[in-house]
């Protein structure tokens, strides 16, 4: 299993490099280059253009530029930005990464959690008005033109009702004298979520050995409550809390918008997956055993329906990232997507290529995580490994 995934990743990694190579030549073969920015200003003499071309290495033959690019990729600094010259591309991307990660993780987790629950319930309530309503709603949300939907959300909740800020990820007034940069706060938020996840994992791992369900449950509840209290206390005493709160407040609208669309997709998927699962013989077995319906739904059907939904996660990563770009653009969220968009408008090839490569890399990592998750969820695969 591990070897299988490894081999596949390696093959895909190699192909990815081939793709980047093609893309590099494709982009560099486009008409004109960044030195054209001076064309707009008649006061700047032509020498300036030559100096810039030389400085950016654009005067060299394409093949040398490519070698240089490969060198930059291998040393992980990805070259220098044209637009933010001479800032390394990697620095620009790392600056944007926590913001995108935060948006992406929150939206993905939320949409999966809520979407899965809804899909489960809807499949259970077949042919009821609730089901029909949810289905029609999900199909509309699933097929809605996302940028338009985002604008509508912004208009309605941001402008019409005035409940949420219009774009941006923080309120400058609160941050002028902030001892922290936004990324420090983002990182702390991500870190605390990670720590919480690890702690929760640890709680389950250690209580897992308690054989009897009742004391196990009690131990878990206690420990989880401790973790929760710990988190709350941490954020209450943390001097970062007001800044984190500001970011969280600005997050609500973009995350809700992004979540809603993927939530619909997950709901649709879970529903059909559930309906498939409900036809399985072991569901009948469970019924014959006298297992209560709710337990059948949650423990027997949903647990198995989760498997194809997890697989689909891989497919949806690309879509969530794509949606993320639109979200970042409409809600002025300066993450990777906005970086990419700004780079392409500024003809900043290194940043555009870097952002694309980085997004691709993120997608590959997410894919790997989904593969591992699948293996964890499905004993048939787990045991083989």
């Amino acid at each position: 299993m591990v070897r299988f995934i490894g081999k596949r990743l390696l093959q895909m990694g190699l192909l990815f490099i081939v793709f980047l190579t093609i893309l590099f030549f494709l982009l560099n073969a486009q008409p004109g280059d960044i030195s054209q920015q001076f064309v707009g200003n008649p006061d700047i003499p032509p020498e300036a253009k030559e100096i810039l071309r030389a400085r950016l290495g654009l005067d060299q033959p394409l093949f040398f530029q490519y070698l240089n690019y490969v060198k930059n990729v291998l040393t992980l600094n990805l070259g220098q930005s044209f637009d933010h010259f001479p800032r390394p591309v990697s620095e620009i991307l790392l600056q944007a990464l926590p913001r995108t990660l935060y948006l992406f993780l929150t939206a993905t987790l939320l949409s999966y959690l809520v979407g899965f629950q809804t899909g489960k319930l809807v499949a259970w309530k077949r042919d009821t008005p609730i089901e029909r309503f949810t289905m029609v709603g999900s199909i509309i949300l699933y097929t809605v033109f996302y940028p338009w939907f985002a604008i509508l959300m912004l208009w309605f909740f941001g402008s019409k009702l005035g409940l949420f800020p219009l774009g941006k990820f923080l309120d400058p007034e609160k941050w002028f004298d902030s001892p922290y940069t936004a990324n420090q706060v983002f990182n702390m938020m991500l870190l605390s979520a990670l720590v919480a996840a690890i702690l929760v994992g640890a709680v389950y791992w250690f209580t897992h050995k308690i054989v009897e369900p009742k004391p196990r449950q009690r131990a878990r509840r206690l420990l989880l409550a401790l973790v929760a209290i710990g988190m709350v206390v941490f954020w209450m005493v943390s001097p970062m809390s007001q800044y984190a709160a500001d970011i969280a407040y600005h997050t609500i609208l973009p995350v809700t918008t992004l979540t809603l669309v993927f939530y619909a997709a997950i709901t649709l998927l879970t529903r059909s997956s559930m309906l498939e699962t409900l036809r399985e013989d072991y569901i009948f077995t469970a019924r014959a055993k006298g297992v209560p319906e709710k337990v059948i739904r949650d423990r027997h059907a949903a647990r198995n329906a989760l498997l194809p939904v997890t697989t689909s996660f891989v497919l949806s990563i690309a879509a969530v990232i794509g949606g993320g770009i639109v979200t970042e653009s409409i809600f002025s969220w300066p993450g990777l997507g906005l970086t990419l968009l700004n780079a392409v408008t500024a003809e900043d090839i290194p940043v555009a290529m870097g952002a694309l490569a980085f997004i691709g890399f993120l997608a590959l990592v997410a894919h790997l995580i989904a593969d591992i998750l699948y293996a964890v969820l499905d004993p048939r695969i787990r045991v083989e490994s």
Partner: protein
Amino acid sequence: MTDVRDTDMMGAEVLDESLWKIRMRLLWRSFKRNWALFSQSKMGVVGVVIVGFFGFLAILHPILMATAWKGQEAIYDPVIGADSVIVEKTVVTEVTDPSTEMSFTEAMITGEFFPEEGMIIEVPIAPAPPNAKHLLGTDPFGRDIFSQLMFGARAAFILGVIAATSAVVLATVVGSVAAYYGGWMDTWLMRQADLILLLPLLPLLIVIGSFWEIGLWQLGILIGILSGLGATAIILKSQALSVKVKPFNDAARVAGGGNRHIIVRHIIPNVLPLSFLFMMFEVTGAIFLEATLSFFGLLSIPMSWGIMINTSHTQGYTLFGLRAWWLLFPAGLAVTLFAAGFFLIGRAMDVVVNPRLRTR
């Protein structure tokens, strides 16, 4: 998918009736049967109605331009048309009647930088709300929204057809070849497909679209290639694999059929029904991508729904909300409904193509 196979097998046995007649008859029969299955899904019928409606709009546009709007291209053309409703207003210090008077500031906005009291300035009215002349009003440049909407429907169909056809043709070939030959060819094609599947298409197209000039056709073919080598190829390959093991292939081989013959005559026809299904989903994807890229202003297309939204957004009318609803809703709803139409048809077709999903 059994239907096509039937056609194929039975066609081979025909003795006295001309082949095409039998094929037509079988096709008709299978169409009726499939339609019966298809129409079980109410959603599918809704999808057909929606797509039909847009098809009607797409056809209506050239007809209107040639009849009712003939000679009025300057007004109704979706791209260069502009309705010149021009009002004369007097420059005053205190505006009491905005329909005949204007402030100094407003005068300056028209390019009259040194306005004087009592000056008469002509101002056009745009965007105009819906009226008898413009059923859905005009955009910020005075262009007829309804005309743009119809024109956009045509663009959407063209794009959808190009993207879906090229994707499915490519995917069918790639899937069949990968399934039939296997080996390194399969590995290469499938890893490539995995990679494309994983890579977010939108950023890639954003990058390509902004550095290169991309029109409707180029975009259609680009989407077609990317998805034809990607997700669609994987699914069609697994389908081709299941067809590959069917006995008639061995029969064909025993009968002396070459590889290409078997792929073309046996594997591809059996993969086709599923291909058609994917064409539907392909259209949904392509129209989304087009509209999103147009929304970012990265395409060289004269007019599309995405550009309509882009225009009202860049001209600053989106946050007007309901006050300028004709700028906010028609185009956005069109993209949504169009995509939904094909999505619903696809879902309903799924039932026809996948017997597993039929109601028991």
